[in-house]
């Protein structure tokens, strides 16, 4: 697996370099501290969702309900804030809500042995519906000015937004756990063959359960950032964001069949997508065209590894 000519992460980083070089030379307003800060900030929530998805996809499962969990938590934050609950109380409650929604996914996948794809397509709709259930069609605003800067401002003395702190922490933690611990190795083992993993003593159910719960909590963290950043809690917050997160994970070189992928790859993909989106915006490329580009990126990222394997005369990646 490791004797590739060029590692995919290197390709992505080169592409990142190309986008940022193109942006800096050909697009006025790109190479500007304020713009780079915005570019990073605009992808903070997506990055958290992608980091939630990464270990799940490594085990060969998926969680498509991430953006809906974000939406539900945002709606919940809105309702609680509107009811006069202190923000300091809302934060842990939102995290618990995320964990609970993640546990529901986990229970359905692990205890009932249902396919995660089907379960989380179901909860994608269900959680979004519940979000409208708790908040309705309205919006809640006026979040506290003493906390909002954490979602909107830069760390004093730098151009880095505060939101990079949780994003980088989560990214580093993910890299540490996935690449340097027995739990991380077990993710790859499960992805390459669940039966084998189980027979070699990996507690597959427990690992998977934990992954979905962690995913729910990360979505709740993203919902706090999103809600404070836009100063607006709505049930439709981040609708459709799961597709961008899934694209980042797959473009990052994580195999949709499980068992292959790195945190560095996903991080590079996130940076590439954030940079590309920003350059396209600055060049007045319309949203429709951007959607087409995102869709193509997704297909290419699934196609390239398969095509590369075929070219090398190997068999296609095994399913499960």
């Amino acid at each position: 697996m490791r004797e590739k000519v060029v590692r995919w992460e290197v390709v992505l980083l080169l592409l990142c370099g190309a986008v940022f070089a193109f942006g800096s030379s050909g697009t006025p307003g790109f190479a500007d501290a304020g713009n780079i800060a915005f570019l990073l900030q605009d992808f903070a929530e997506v990055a958290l969702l992608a980091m939630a998805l990464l270990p799940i996809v490594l085990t060969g499962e998926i969680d498509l309900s991430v953006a809906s969990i974000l939406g539900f938590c945002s709606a919940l934050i809105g309702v609680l804030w509107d009811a006069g609950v202190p923000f300091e109380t809302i934060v842990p409650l939102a995290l618990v809500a995320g964990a609970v929604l993640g546990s529901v996914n986990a229970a359905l996948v692990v205890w009932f042995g249902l396919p995660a794809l089907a379960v989380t397509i179901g909860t994608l709709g269900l959680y979004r519906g519940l979000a409208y259930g708790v908040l309705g069609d309205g919006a809640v605003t006026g979040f506290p000015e003493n906390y909002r800067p954490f979602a909107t401002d830069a760390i004093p003395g730098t151009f880095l937004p505060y939101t990079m702190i949780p994003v980088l922490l989560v990214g580093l933690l993910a890299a540490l756990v996935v690449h340097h611990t027995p739990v991380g190795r077990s993710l790859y083992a499960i992805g390459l063959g669940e039966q084998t993993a189980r027979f070699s003593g990996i507690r597959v159910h427990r690992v998977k359960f934990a992954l979905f719960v962690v995913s729910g909590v990360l979505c709740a963290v993203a919902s706090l950032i999103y809600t404070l950043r836009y100063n607006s809690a709505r049930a439709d917050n981040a609708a459709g964001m799961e597709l961008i997160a899934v694209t980042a994970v797959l473009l990052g070189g994580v195999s949709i069949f499980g068992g292959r992928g790195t945190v560095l790859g996903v991080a590079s993909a996130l940076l590439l997508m954030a940079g590309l989106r920003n350059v396209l915006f600055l060049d007045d490329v319309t949203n429709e065209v951007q959607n087409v580009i995102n869709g193509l990126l997704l297909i290419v990222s699934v196609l390239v590894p398969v095509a590369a394997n075929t070219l090398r005369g190997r068999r296609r990646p095994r399913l499960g």
Partner: protein
Amino acid sequence: MIRSASVTKVAGAVLALVLVGACGGTTKDSSAGTAAGGSTGVGRTADPDAPIKEGVKVAFLPKEVDNPYEIIMDKGGIEAVTELKGEGKEVGPSDASASSQVSYINTLVQQRQDAIVIAANDPNAVAPALKDAMAKGIAVVTVDSDAAPDARQVFVNQADSEEIGRSQIRLVSAQVGGRGKIAILSATPNATNQNTWIEFMKDELAKPEHAGLELVKVAYGDDDDQKSFQETQALLQSIPDLKGIVSPTTVGISAAARYLSSSPYKGKVALTGLGTPNQMRQFVKDGTVTAFALWDPSELGYLAGHAAAALASGRITGAEGEKFSAGRLGERTIGAKGEVILGPPTTFDAGNIDEFDF
């Protein structure tokens, strides 16, 4: 599958956090901000004789780029900017969600536009980005749908909101003979303009002369053709004795008219609201709709374009009482809270609809 001991620990930790938070934290009431009215570009003074900035760059940011009303409006705005020898352009999202306009605002700031003219999807979600734009010296004008007042300098309003709301009720009242159940088909639940009009509609309904009218439901079509169509169907089926529908949005009224025209309710349930003559012509001619109203959206955009250029050139700052020239619309004065008003809406019916093309 997860040990109950660890669950208990986590639950305990969360409970502790909740309790800590509960003792004197930041609540809605304690942090209720003092919403300042109308930002007037503090520290700036108006110079009415300043020349229009050469090649002034004005960007128009609609709610969404697929909305025909918004497109007509922004074309009018670009026309005004072109008259002033500036550069006008329209960019915007393809969905009307709260957050989608924010990326565009950042983009326009980075492109060093001189002015941004925006129809806000969510008055609060865009406010921080707009304030940031103003802090960087970019003139901000809202048009059609306002943002938080401290996040823009001038709001170009169609007509007096009160007059729009009240006239909608007078229109529907005349069409249903002053009696019966009516419903409203609105756009998104957070659309500032819609909600203001609906408030005035409710106020008008409370008057004794409209005692026979009963507002039974406000439905939301989200300015989406298909959803508005379905909401109309749902209204008619769930309220069998419905007499009239008011849809104060061009997307809503045309979707509702399309459903009505091919349903058994055609001619029996009155439909009125705000629509463009081109969209509604066939439904007026086939008898589905008797009369509806609108101002000319391209004039609205035209006025906003002139206001934006005047702001960007320092002729005005957005303070009450300042005057600026708005091309063929003559001289306009900024009213309270930075509002500039286009004028009363026009009512269209079978008699005059062919005189209009927009």
